[in-house]
């Protein structure tokens, strides 16, 4: 027990340190937000002075009705996300001056000084060619130069390092007791690397040189691809597909599972909720089951569902059915229980039968609650389907991004995440539209 406790404390300390190291970035971002706010205020005041009701309030602090989302801030915020993303990935969508310093690419030269066992020294030049990922530059011919140390050529890919066996062509080798003592005239030891301006040169234990080209501030494609390459990937994948499955197929499989699972869940959950809202016996019967299953996250059921139903469509639909079922049952129960008794009484004294009251009073009265439940359930189902596909699936957006991550196709992973976000948002907007259309009285009485 104390072991666990001390382990957790250590984890907390590590976490704290990483938060502290992220502080400059956070403070910088907040500074940018405030800067834009001031700038926008100045611009807007120059253009027009708003004379709406809110602008005339003298007290707005803590006034909920006075705080409305500023659309220009939203636009700037989204644009800035892409600008920052592009700046640190060297995106082609941004003008070059906005780019963060990139990795060194091109040809450069450094000079190493060799000292023989007898103290004699000689210099030789190394021509370094740093190339981008995927490019294969030609190896240039360099004259060997005079003295016992001969000139070398080193070809290295950006973000990678390369060992230089400098004595491969020299007359004095490490076996003869020769060693490198300086780079560009700066003394080189095991402890002290030398910065050449375009990269760092270090001495290895075996006496060879290790060259690491300058990385700059930009992210490597494998960590974070540029927005334009994600976009190009989206275009190419929607045309050609990813790993022999088209994007449309991935998406439609995921959506199919969500819609079928949700509909089944609603089909069973709503009558179940009605029964629980109308009958003491059903309420008592299902309360323990529903109240127990509701807090179990659907993701925790994935292993069991795989054991029982395998990784085919059936298993996933069962999972989504279970995810939607409890939410819909509870929403329907709340909708029925929430009917004001005076409305039922009014209907009775207008001569309605219990069945008519069910049809004309209780069901319509429960619709707003059911819609709220449906929105929550759709959100949960969408999240669950992606997670289930991450674990095991043949097709689906979740499957696509997990496969892409195994091949380090980070652009596909990012594209998948963005698509998942957009579709989730779209589903919610669609549900809200339906809500406004079908239950316009919601929240109005």
């Amino acid at each position, binding site marked *: 027990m104390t072991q666990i406790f001390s382990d957790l404390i250590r984890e907390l300390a590590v976490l704290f340190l990483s938060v502290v190291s992220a502080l400059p970035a956070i403070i910088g971002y907040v500074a940018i937000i405030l800067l834009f706010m001031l700038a926008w205020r100045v611009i807007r005041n120059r253009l027009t002075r708003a004379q709406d009701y809110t602008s005339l309030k003298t007290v707005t602090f803590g006034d909920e009705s006075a705080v409305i989302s500023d659309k220009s801030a939203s636009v700037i915020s989204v644009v800035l996300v892409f600008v920052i993303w592009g700046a640190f990935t060297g995106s082609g969508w941004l003008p070059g001056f906005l780019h963060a310093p990139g990795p060194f690419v091109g040809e450069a030269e450094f000079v190493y000084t060799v000292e023989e066992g007898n103290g004699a020294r000689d210099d030789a030049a190394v021509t370094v060619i740093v190339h981008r990922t995927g490019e294969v530059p030609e190896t240039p011919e360099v004259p060997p130069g005079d003295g016992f140390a001969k000139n070398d050529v080193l070809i290295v890919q950006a973000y990678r390092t390369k060992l230089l066996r400098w004595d491969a062509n020299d007359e004095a080798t490490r076996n003869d007791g020769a060693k490198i003592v300086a780079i560009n005239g700066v003394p080189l030891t095991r402890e002290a690397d030398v910065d050449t301006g375009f990269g760092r040169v270090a001495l290895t234990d075996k006496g060879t040189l290790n060259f690491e080209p300058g990385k700059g501030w930009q992210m490597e494609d494998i960590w974070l691809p540029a927005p334009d390459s994600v976009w190009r990937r989206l275009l190419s994948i929607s045309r050609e597909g990813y790993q022999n499955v088209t994007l449309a197929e991935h998406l439609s499989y995921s959506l199919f599972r969500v819609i079928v699972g949700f509909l089944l869940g609603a089909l069973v959950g709503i009558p179940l909720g009605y029964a629980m809202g109308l009958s003491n016996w059903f309420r008592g019967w299902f309360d323990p089951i529903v109240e127990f299953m509701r807090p179990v996250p659907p993701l925790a059921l994935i292993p069991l569902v795989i054991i029982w139903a395998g990784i085919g469509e059936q298993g996933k639909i069962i999972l989504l059915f279970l995810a939607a079922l409890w939410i819909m049952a509870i929403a329907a129960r709340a909708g029925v229980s929430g009917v004001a008794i005076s409305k039922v*009484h*009014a209907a*009775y*004294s207008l001569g309605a*039968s219990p069945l008519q009251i069910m049809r004309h*009073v209780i069901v319509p*009265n429960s619709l707003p609650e059911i819609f709220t439940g449906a929105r929550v359930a759709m959100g949960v189902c969408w999240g669950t389907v992606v997670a289930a596909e991450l674990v095991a699936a043949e097709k689906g957006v979740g499957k696509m991004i997990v496969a892409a991550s195994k091949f380090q196709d980070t652009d596909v992973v990012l594209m998948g995440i963005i698509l998942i976000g957009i579709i989730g948002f779209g589903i919610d907007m669609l549900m809200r539209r339906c809500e406004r259309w079908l239950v316009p009285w919601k929240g*109005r009485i």
Partner: protein
Amino acid sequence: MSGLEIQDVSMRFDLPNGGHVQALQNVSLSIKQGEIMSVLGPSGCGKTTLLNIVAGFLAPTEGEVVLNGHRVEGPDAERGMVFQQGALFEWMSVRDNVSFGPRMAGKRAAEWRENVDHLLDVVGLQDFKEKMVYELSGGMQQRVALARCLANDPDVILMDEPLGALDALTREKMQGLVLKLWKETGKTIILITHSVEEALLLGEHLLVMAPRPGRIHREYHLPFADLGVGKDLREIKKLPDFGERREEILGMIWDMEEEIMGRSEEAA
């Protein structure tokens, strides 16, 4: 025999802690057909319980309610109810709300349409027939509730503080409307209120109830409702008789409230 008879009705609620509340004790009362009766009393005197028993939403522990010679066993279209907050169906338009009773009875639109439109004209909602009820103000919603009740043509109309949630001006107008509808339709009306003035204006027959246990304290038969039909109710309020009655009943209720306060102070 016609009219409403409340015969020796008692109502006792058992509490979860083993005690009980005597909401009504041996209440007997008869209301003639076409009579408008208002019920007054301090809170907790069982006014609403009595109304719910007449409506059939509650079964009395003792006694019975007899309407036109048959015993009340449950809610029925012969006894319409108007609630404090309208209890309208917000998923329906004004017209659908008002025609709810006839529609549930299986009548075709041709049978009820004329009457429903007429009633909406009477309550002054001719321009709002197609509106949804959540688009109306509180006073308009209450008029929809009245029209909905009338459209079902009940023998007795029960009103549970129907004007309680309205502002003073709207309330005065609605009082005039209730009197007008009472005279035109000849319905029996029981109206619960907290306002002594309203009870005097609208009560041909006025019942003052006392609490713990809920019982009838005094019964009055008053001329003001008849006088007020079609008149400016403010003129009625200026009558010397009216002022006298108002002071008398206010004093009576005041004393009862004092007594309740005193009793709860003793208990504390």
